[in-house]
């Protein structure tokens, strides 16, 4: 999981805080414990843990069990937020925007390659924002950073991006239907599109859907 990476990031901090080898070994082992979160939001925890370690080394107020507890509880919570925000909403949405651009402009305009570039810019803007802001805010506000998450202006807009996504898919479908297909053939396109949407109930994997398409088309090739 992410424990090795977590320790690797913290190494400079730990080396600075614990000049004595005995304490340093202890702190290293402490952060090798199981840890799993979302890779971007884990940075908030890196900030928080760096601050807590610092306080522990200097004042001795914070106990090492507290740090473990914070890592465990907040790691899971941030994992959940990050998975649904980045993997579940933002990446599909930005990827869809890029795909739509390429589908519409490929062959019509030289600049179709801009689609992937726009995807990288759009996606990584939020990605790096979360990473850098995460470390700094985590270090500054410690565990109070959770309250800040509620206020994050972009969360709500992104979670509602599925409406825009659906509209984009349907519009692109219409463009493809009327541009690349002629007369009666449009029925095949529509029938296939609708049947895949209906098949969604059974959660069939993409690979199987592809084989289904190939199977149907080959049978069709023999009949017609």
């Amino acid at each position, binding site marked *: 999981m992410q424990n*090795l990476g977590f320790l690797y990031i913290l190494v400079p901090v730990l080396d600075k805080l614990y000049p004595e080898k005995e304490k340093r070994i202890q702190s290293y082992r402490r952060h090798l414990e199981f840890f799993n979160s979302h890779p971007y939001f884990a940075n908030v925890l890196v900030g928080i843990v760096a601050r807590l370690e610092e306080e522990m080394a200097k004042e001795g107020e914070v106990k090492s069990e507290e740090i473990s507890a914070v890592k465990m509880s907040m790691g899971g919570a941030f994992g959940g937020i990050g*998975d649904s925000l980045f993997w579940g909403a933002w990446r599909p949405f930005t990827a869809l925007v890029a795909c739509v651009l390429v589908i519409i402009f490929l062959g019509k305009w030289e600049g179709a390659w801009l689609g992937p570039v726009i995807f990288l810019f759009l996606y990584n803007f939020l990605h790096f924002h979360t990473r850098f802001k995460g470390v700094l805010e985590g270090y500054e506000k410690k565990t109070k950073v959770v309250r800040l998450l509620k206020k994050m202006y972009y969360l709500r807009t992104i979670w509602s991006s599925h409406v825009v996504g659906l509209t984009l898919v349907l519009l692109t479908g219409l463009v493809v239907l009327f541009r690349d297909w002629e007369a009666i053939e449009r029925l095949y396109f529509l029938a296939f599109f609708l049947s895949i949407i209906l098949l969604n109930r059974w959660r069939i994997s993409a690979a199987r859907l592809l084989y289904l398409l190939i199977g149907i088309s080959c049978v069709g090739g*023999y009949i017609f």
Partner: protein
Amino acid sequence: MIAEIASVSFIGGLLSLDVSAWGQIMVSRPIVCGPLIGLLLGDLKTGLIIGVLLELIWINVISVGAAIPPDATIVAVTCTTLIILTESKLSLGSDFHGSYRMVVLALTMPLAEFFKTIDVKQRKLNARFVHYLDREILKGNLKAVGKVNNFSLFLVFLRGFLFSLVAISVGVYILPKLFSYLPYAMLVGLNFAYRLMPALGLAIAFNTFRGL
């Protein structure tokens, strides 16, 4: 040909680092790595097409928590490379390039699941690295943290590199031969299937965004 395969596999190894091990700036998504490989081999358009088709198909594949999704990157890399390298050598005319692309897609899709099983094994190996590191730290060997971290990163690169090297080298020889055995009716069907691919991708994207 050999130089091309080797350089593409090298890039494939670097790209598979981006999936979960290093960076995650999403250059590993098919929409980016398809055109990237296309650019490298001098056929950007094919790269874009394959990238978009694979991206739409796998747009809903996400890794929730510790679950590992099928690996779209390796499929995008091998599929794009195989199509660009072998398409011009087919004995059939360019009318049937669509059906050839469908054959390549259909035969490279299972690589995603196969690559995933290797990934699972590698993660188990990483857990053993952590135990090893724990012992080293107890001994006082603190430099081992960086070494173990970089070594496991290198293993991820090596996995992507060797896997795409083997898959592409085998595919380059097998696929054109296999394609020449297909009967005419099937070729027509596959060609139609290729034209329907955007419908499949958009329908999957529709389902994804409806379920959000």
